[in-house]
């Protein structure tokens, strides 16, 4: 693949000739642009990438990327993506979806995907509302808030998605903001390059239905100092890495600082890389321990027939276990 490596991939190659129907000013645009720039910047060619989307505005992202795109079912984006990745581990797999898709209808998959640590990247577009169905509260909207289409203040509590990602076992956890594209590109690239399961939460305004956490609100325009609410933890020297072979004390300390960051909100909202756990094997490594040829002959590529179209499986040993001879 030496020839391919010398090709410079540009963002343009990830752009599509297909009309985008998100609302003007939607935070999704910043995320879409960041995904395209990030993939190009990594030198990946479109055919090497598969992007899976859930259901909702954000779930349409695969429509707008010139790569293999799979628009799945509400809440099921992670298992679809995992199946493709496990069957063809050479694929670069991204899964994207909204806060309702991931934290409500798909929460069970989110938690259990954490147990596997499959090498894929999940980007959760968090705008705290169900946009496509006209602004109902999502599981990330805080208790008691009333966004504009809610008839009453939110009566249900909020799930802390970062905390859930940590306790579920995601080994790379980060947070970005849809209008900080420069940082977001870097975060997506790090998440993709992380050998294991990455969770990237992207805060985004919904200009149509979230009238509380708006672009101006994130920018801190209502604050006395007029400074943005979000800040980059890396700029403050935060080190998220649990190195390979780390002792229990180090692990505890890293988790403790993560928990602190995961609970910061309001006037100071942390963004950046919040946790990198290099101390956990990937699912692919675990499979390869059982199936030594897994990497060279994964499910998508292993031979199943000869040239005449006959099965090549030799199951004699399995039949022998069951055989009896008089």
């Amino acid at each position, binding site marked *: 693949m030496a*020839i*391919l490596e010398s*090709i410079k991939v540009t963002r343009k*190659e990830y752009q599509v000739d297909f009309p985008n129907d998100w609302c003007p000013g939607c935070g999704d645009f910043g995320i879409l642009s960041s995904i395209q720039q990030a993939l190009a910047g990594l030198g990946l*060619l*479109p*055919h090497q990438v*598969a992007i*899976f989307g859930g259901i909702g505005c954000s779930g349409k992202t695969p*429509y707008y990327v*010139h790569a*293999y*795109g*799979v*628009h*799945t*079912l509400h*809440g*099921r984006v*992670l*298992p*679809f*993506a*995992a*199946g*493709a990745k*496990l*069957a*063809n581990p050479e*694929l670069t797999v991204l899964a994207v979806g909204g806060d309702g898709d991931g934290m409500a209808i798909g929460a*069970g*998959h989110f938690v*259990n995907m954490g147990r596997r640590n499959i090498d894929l990247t999940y980007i959760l577009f968090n705008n705290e509302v169900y946009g496509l169905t006209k602004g109902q509260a999502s599981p990330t909207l805080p208790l008691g808030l009333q966004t504009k289409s809610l008839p009453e203040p939110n009566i249900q509590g909020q799930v802390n998605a970062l905390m859930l990602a940590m306790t579920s076992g995601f080994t790379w956890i980060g947070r970005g903001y849809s209008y900080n594209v420069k940082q977001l590109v870097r975060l997506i690239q790090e998440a993709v390059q992380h050998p294991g399961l990455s969770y990237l939460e992207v805060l985004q305004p919904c200009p149509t239905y979230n009238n509380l956490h708006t672009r101006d609100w994130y920018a801190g325009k209502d604050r006395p100092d007029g400074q943005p609410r979000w800040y980059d933890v890396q700029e403050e020297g935060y080190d998220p890495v649990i190195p390979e072979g780390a002792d229990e004390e180090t692990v505890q300390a890293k988790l403790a600082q993560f928990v602190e960051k995961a609970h910061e909100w309001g006037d100071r909202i942390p963004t950046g890389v919040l946790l990198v756990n290099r101390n956990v094997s990937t699912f692919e490594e675990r499979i390869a321990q*059982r*199936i*030594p*040829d*897994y990497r060279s*002959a*994964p*499910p*998508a590529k*292993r*031979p*199943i*027939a*000869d040239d005449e*179209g*006959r*099965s090549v*499986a*030799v*199951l004699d040993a*399995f*039949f022998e276990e*069951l*055989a*009896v*001879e*008089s």
Partner: protein
Amino acid sequence: MSSRHNDLSWRVGGPQGSGVDTAARMFSYACAFGGLYVLGRREYYSNIMGRHSYYDVRVSAAQQPTSHRETVDMLVSFEAETLARHTTSTVAGGVVIYNVKDEDIPFERITFLDRRLREDLASYLREQELPPTTAGLLEDARRRGVQTFAFPYDEIIQALAQKLDVHKSVAQRTLNTIAVAVSVGMLEYDPECLVKALEKIFSGREKIVRLNVTAAELTYEYVREQFDFEHFAFRLSVNNQGKRMVVLNGNQASALGKLAGGLSFQTYYPISPATDESVYLEGHHTFPLRTGGTGSVVVVQTEDELSAITMAAGAALTGARSSTATSGPGFSLMVEALGWTGINEVPLVVTDYQRGSPSTGMPTRTEQGDLLFAVRAGHGEFPRIVLASGDVVETFHDAAQAFNYAERYQVPVIHLLDKNLASTTVTVPPAELEVEGIKIERGELYISTTQNGQDPFPRFQPTETGVSPRPVLGQPGTLHWYTGGEHTVYGRVTEDPVVREQQMEKRMRKLEVIAREIPVEEKFRVYGDADAPLTVMSWGSNKGAILEALELLAADGIAARLVQVRLLWPFPSDELRPYLESASPLVVAECNYSGQFARLLRECTGRACDYLIVKYNGRPMSGQALREALKQIHAGRAEHRIVLRNPYE
């Protein structure tokens, strides 16, 4: 008394966790090592320990038995509940073997004996002026000509402990072997066959083999001295030398068929009675390939069935042969994704082991209640194939063939099995399970040859057959999109009315092609007297029972035929027509309440059945029961709908 040589219906029962399965496996293997054909059938509760389970083993030298019998020639028990439940099913001339301690146990002391059964038995015994106890049942059996044999399990275990100088708790573990050895002794069967069975089951553990062989020898000695051989007509003897048989059940057959058919990715969420298939695959994930190298299957236990089917679908998009196995409740959850695979033309195999339903129903009992559900599952319309196997050997071949159908037509394939097939064990000549002859047909799978093309590919290009070239994720030159929404040829979401019509027509056209291309012998098979007007039409695991009923009827001088429909969707209406026209009467037999197959038949052909035989108590039909029902029908004495019942199953 007439001799009953090499034809036996044997039953062992006991609390779950006590090794009833092991005893049955031991007895089955012992018979198979003597060249005898075996059919095993397992009944058990949704419970880990303590509830009653039993295992029937049908043995024959003449041919492979295809059905269990509801009557028992030899009942083996080591506790009271088995005696209570099955003594009345034992035939005259047969034998009931029981633990001497269980000679006189009042029914109310048997914890898990259902109140209904207890009262039924008590009232039956009252009519015989006998008490509601095991003693009452044993006395009734003796009056009916059944020999009862009190066996001192404890004494034999004690003697074994002394002889080998082991602790009694160690000797106690041979209880199942002793139970089997009693049978082998009474049947005057070759003890060497039991030794071979023990060696197979405890392979490599010489000490355990010796312990068990000694237990068997002590048992034979006791039986020789105490048993009244003269009043027991049943005998088994070695039938054949050098005959090789594979002993397997439906779960194993489906798993092996899938491996033979190129399965590379299987997902599952634990559910009875489907789990054993996936667990078997997980334990047999790597095997050699005829062309060199190794083949393998990645098995993933998912968090639920929604994940199981969607993960399998994701894998299928990359070109892997992919499937998931479940039962009705799990299949219910999978339905949203079934529609997704339909509109996206994903080749995916879903194996549904039907069980007693609806809802939790009877998780470990059988039923054919998912037929209409499988045919219709999902909102909206999309093509699918529904295939039902009739026996363990068919299960093997259909499990492989299902992938060919899925890939040739790019549709989801639902392979309908049931609990009955899952836990039926048979002896099969290896030639019937040959892997090398199995065809792999990948249809329009499109492998690109370019190194670096990034142009979109018309994945959903309408064609005459409706089947389009299918590239896989990750290859150059074939970029395309998938969406659960209606889409253009490139997989771009659209709501355009004309494109909608084109894509809908393209997809649905495949059903006509499937109906045209699948050979008639795959769609249905005819057994028995092909010209007989008395026609039984059925599907799935009833096949074996009906075949036996046909044989029994033939012996009674009644000619009949079975039309076993295997392709349930698209329904083979045209090809069935000649059989429907000549059927007189037309009898449909199936294990559900409402006659789902009969309804489908009428919907697709306009022909209503003349008689409907159904069974829905969670236990499979037997040849015996069907024979009686068909005799009534033949004599013109039957109602339109006949329900097969047996309160003692």
